[in-house]
């Protein structure tokens, strides 16, 4: 573009000048293109890089805890909730006089001003001063009106019912992490996603304002627990522990049909609101994590297996050899010298000899199968942390005498929940349902309406046939009526159950303790259509320590109240007075059972236990046999005389039977399953509430015929329960859904 010398200089408009103008245009155009390319490169290609850089210098991120999900009981009552509390933070660069501010705040918090000042000076743009303050403290700090001091709403866990179901619920730490129970097991679900507080800062590191990214609240969890039942269980357990001066105790209340745990109590307990003041021992859930020898309650398994395998019949007479048996060199004595007992009486009287003889008929591997089928030796899967598997050695690791020990509930370790679930399987006509404590989850900010929560039953399995189950139920009912469980008799309800007394291992000596026992009672009610299974255990009661003496009354008190609360219709009104008579008699009865004799004197099985079983004791102990005192033997005779089957129909009674039409039935077996023979005819049993199948089984047992109309649950029957069926008559039962 070398300009030519301006030949046409006189022209006002020169082409040369125009060319140069175009040159300038081109120059500026190219320049603007370069700018556009650069803009594209910076804003599109390298966008991410610069966004990151900007965030790094402009934002200080502070995490904001999300609102933790609620924990509800099955009826939507809050058991654990999250409340909003104030946390105080400082933007130190905005505080004119930091030392003064620290002094004032420390005055409210009653802490060291230097500590507060150190916090303030830890950053230029953000520093927590105090987290999760109570309302009064935050109000007072607000009142100070300090510049550069701000408040952030944070959530704090609050357990409105304090100690109620403490071990089930667990507790959370300062940073909302679940540290026990449901809080721990479902921490991910409950916790939600933390939000962020972005503190924007300018180039001088001063805060320019805060942007909150809202935290996502956690989901709510609905438990199968019923707050009221839990309360009943805990109150009665506490009372029983005081009365018996027990060291600890557990209660499991379960719906036998669904496996849902309605109450799970463990005492002594703690207040999860102030869990840090509780000793670690109190925090664990004994009902799922403690393992102990069940003792006689385990005989249910022995007898169930023998009946199911057709190796015995309920009425079959077993020679109990005057209460003594020698098995592989070990001599076992019953607590009473029983002669010949029926299988049913073995349960009723809790005969060790009888149980051992039945187990021997089963053989090791079959017995082992049933133990496992009833859920022992493996976790039940209940949704709580730290659940023990229990201790059930496989049959191939049994010693020769193991079968005898296990038959009477020794050399086997169980948890309360395992045992309750076993009893529920009997109550549920032989179908084992794994226990559950979580009903479901509901989305955040949703109240747990029945629609929102799906109570879906766990996978069930049949362990014994309905017939075997019915036979066992009767035996267990008889145990309450005539055997060791008399103190479990209820008002207006039939009940069934089995007592247990097991020696504890003395952790100091490594031997079975001679004085420390675990007294337990496992049962259900009403017998025909069980509404609840209740298992209670008391650890180391002082003085009287037999399950029948200390655990059965606890079972009775809890079950009585729970049935009333659940509005379960009475099934024993008509025989009320007779129950009272029996109870009066039971007051004098010696309900001792279980023998201090052991087939295996070693406590080696505890070596298999996990750490939660405490120190592993020494391997071998000397045999400890304590003979019944003369006094006990004397009482045993009275009992034996009073409660032999022959005498069932003539119980000693203080008061005569209450005269009424319904009680024209002979005061025979107070048994809900079997109708009572009477002089004039038969009394119709209660079919109401039963399924078709269980009604038919009951009818078959009772030897009466029924006409089934419809399907579902029995709603009506004629004749009504307790009324006399004309000879040759039938009972018509109407079922509906």
């Amino acid at each position, binding site marked *: *573009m*070398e*300009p030519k*010398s*301006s030949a046409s*200089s*006189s022209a*006002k*408009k*020169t082409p*040369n*000048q*125009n060319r*140069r*103008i*175009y*040159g*300038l*245009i081109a120059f*500026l*155009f190219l*320049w*603007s293109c*370069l*700018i*556009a390319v*650069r*803009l*594209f490169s*910076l*804003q*599109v290609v*390298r*966008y991410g*890089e*610069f*966004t990151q*850089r*900007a965030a790094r*210098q*402009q934002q200080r991120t502070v995490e904001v805890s999300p609102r933790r999900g609620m924990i509800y009981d099955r009826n939507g009552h809050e058991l654990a909730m999250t409340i909003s509390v104030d946390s105080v933070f400082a933007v130190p660069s905005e505080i004119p006089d930091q030392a003064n501010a620290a002094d004032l705040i420390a005055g409210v918090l009653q802490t060291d001003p230097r500590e507060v000042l150190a916090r303030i000076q830890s950053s230029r743009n953000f520093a927590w001063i105090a987290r999760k303050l109570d309302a009064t403290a935050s109000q007072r700090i607000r009142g100070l009106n300090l510049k550069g001091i701000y408040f952030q709403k944070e959530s704090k866990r609050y357990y409105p019912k304090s100690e109620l179901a403490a071990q089930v619920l667990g507790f959370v730490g300062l940073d909302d992490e679940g540290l026990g129970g449901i809080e721990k097991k479902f921490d991910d679900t409950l916790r939600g996603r933390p939000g962020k507080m972005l503190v*924007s800062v*300018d*180039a*001088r590191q001063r805060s*320019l304002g805060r942007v909150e990214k809202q935290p996502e609240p956690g989901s709510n969890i609905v438990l199968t627990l019923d707050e009221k039942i839990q309360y009943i269980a805990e109150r009665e357990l506490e009372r029983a522990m005081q009365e018996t001066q027990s060291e600890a105790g557990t209660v499991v209340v379960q719906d036998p049909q669904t496996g849902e745990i309605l109450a799970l109590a463990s005492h002594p307990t703690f207040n999860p609101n102030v869990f840090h003041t509780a000793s670690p021992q109190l925090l664990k859930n004994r009902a799922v994590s403690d393992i102990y020898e069940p003792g006689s309650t385990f005989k249910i398994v022995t007898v169930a297996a023998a009946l199911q395998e057709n190796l015995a019949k309920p009425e079959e007479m077993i020679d109990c050899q005057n209460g003594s048996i020698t098995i592989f060199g070990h001599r076992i004595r019953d607590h009473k010298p029983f002669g010949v007992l029926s299988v049913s009486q073995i349960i009723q009287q809790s005969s060790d000899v009888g149980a051992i003889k039945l187990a021997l008929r089963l053989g090791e591997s079959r017995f082992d199968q049933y133990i496992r089928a009833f859920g022992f030796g493996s976790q039940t899967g209940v949704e709580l942390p730290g659940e023990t598997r229990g201790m059930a050695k496989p049959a191939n690791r049994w010693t020769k005498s193991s079968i005898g020990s296990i038959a009477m509930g020794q050399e086997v370790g169980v948890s309360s929940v395992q045992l309750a679930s076993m009893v529920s399987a009997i109550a549920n006509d032989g179908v084992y349902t794994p226990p559950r404590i979580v009903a479901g989850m509901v989305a955040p900010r949703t109240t747990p309406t029945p629609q929102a929560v799906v109570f879906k039953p766990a996978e069930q399995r049949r362990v014994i046939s309905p017939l075997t189950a019915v036979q066992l139920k009767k035996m267990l009912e008889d145990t309450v009526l005539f055997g060791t469980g008399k103190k479990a008799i209820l008002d207006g309800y039939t009940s069934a159950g089995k007592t247990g007394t097991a020696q504890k291992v003395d952790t100091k000596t490594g031997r079975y303790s001679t004085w420390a026992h675990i007294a337990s009672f496992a049962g259900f009610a009403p017998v025909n259509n069980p509404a609840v299974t209740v298992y209670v255990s008391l650890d180391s009661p002082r003085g009287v320590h037999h399950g029948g003496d200390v655990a059965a009354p606890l079972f009775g008190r809890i079950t009585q109240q729970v049935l009333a609360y659940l509005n379960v219709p009475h099934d024993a009104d008509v025989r009320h007075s007779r129950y009272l008579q029996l109870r009066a008699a039971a007051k004098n009865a010696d309900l001792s059972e279980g023998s201090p004799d052991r087939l295996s004197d070693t406590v080696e099985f505890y070596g298999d236990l996990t750490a939660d079983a405490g120190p592993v004791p020494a391997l071998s102990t000397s045999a400890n046999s304590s003979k019944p005192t003369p006094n006990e033997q004397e009482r045993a005779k009275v009992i034996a005389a009073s409660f032999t089957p022959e005498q069932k129909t003539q119980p000693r009674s203080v008061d005569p039977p209450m005269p009424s039409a319904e009680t024209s039935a002979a005061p025979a077996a107070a048994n809900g399953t079997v109708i009572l023979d009477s002089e004039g005819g038969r009394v119709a049993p209660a079919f109401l509430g039963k399924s078709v199948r269980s009604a038919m089984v009951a009818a078959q047992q009772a030897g009466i015929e029924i006409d089934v109309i419809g399907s579902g649950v029995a709603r009506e029957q004629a004749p009504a329960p307790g009324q006399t069926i004309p000879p040759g008559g039938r009972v018509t039962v109407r079922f509906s859904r």
Partner: protein
Amino acid sequence: MAKRVSADRWIFGSVVLLVFLGLIMVFSASAVMASERFGSAYSFLFRQFAWALAGFLAMLILMNVDHQKLKHPALVFGLLGITAFLLVAVFFLDRTHNVHRWVRLGPLSFQPSELAKPALILFLAYFLESRTKSLTDLRNTLLPALAPAALFFALIAAQPDLGTALMCLAIASAVLFVAGFRLRYFGYALLPLIPALYFLVWRVPWRKERILAFFDPFSDPQGRGFHTIQSLIAVGTGGVSGAGLMEGKQKLFYLPEPQTDFIFAVISEEFGLIGSIFIVVLFLIFCLRGFRVALRAKDPFARLLAVGITAMIGIQAFFNISVVLALLPTKGIPLPFLSYGGSSLLIMLASVGVLLNISKQVE
């Protein structure tokens, strides 16, 4: 023959739009800082608005004053003389920060270096029109033409404001280029400029820092690279559509002078690629129309005047944007119409008034 047409609507429209956007962006960029420094977020906006009103008044007046009347020696040399006087006077009047840039009259302050640019353009257009036949005459044409430019360059560079000084040279070069000077003269002119720039840039520590920062801003992100990096972050975070008006964060003390030299970074951050390109296109439209006016001008005076005014605005705009985008080293050049700064805005708008008047008289 010359005929009278209406003023160029594209120039008028783009300038009005740019000034309007400038008011918005000055507010957005300065609100936080203004409320902190002056207690009112509108402090900068109100002043800019007042200057814009004055500027538009000047523009409307000059638009309707025949530009041929500017072809008067008293006016041309008077303007040169006043500018030279003011440029000398600032050394005695303004002692803030060892920078001598401002003349203050009560609440008003004025930057004489802004006046230097139109004064130079007017002088060159006037002088070169009469010398179109003797452009190769070194002694009688070139040296007299360059003398005021060299004087202004020296005075402004001494303020020190090397950016504006170089801008004066660039504008003069553009006018001389279009006037028809041989290209090798520009080469000759560069020879003494190189050692001058060496001493002015490389021997002045802070300028050297800026140059180093330009070549590798990330080598010292908290020090000499800070401004460049902050500018790039502002532009980069804008993305395609930007953070939205007032939503930019980089103006909050990260960017140096967000309402003046780095206002384009604020625009880029808040309106993204779309907004940035829009501004560039507005300037491009202005330049194309400005040069179109020059092409159609009826005489060399009008043509050179139009070229000078258009080049002044175009070069300054693209230079400023290039600095923001780190395509050029940091120099304190405001973005015409958009940057906060009263004297600049007033003079730019008055110049546009002249350009619009030229556009009314085409051949």
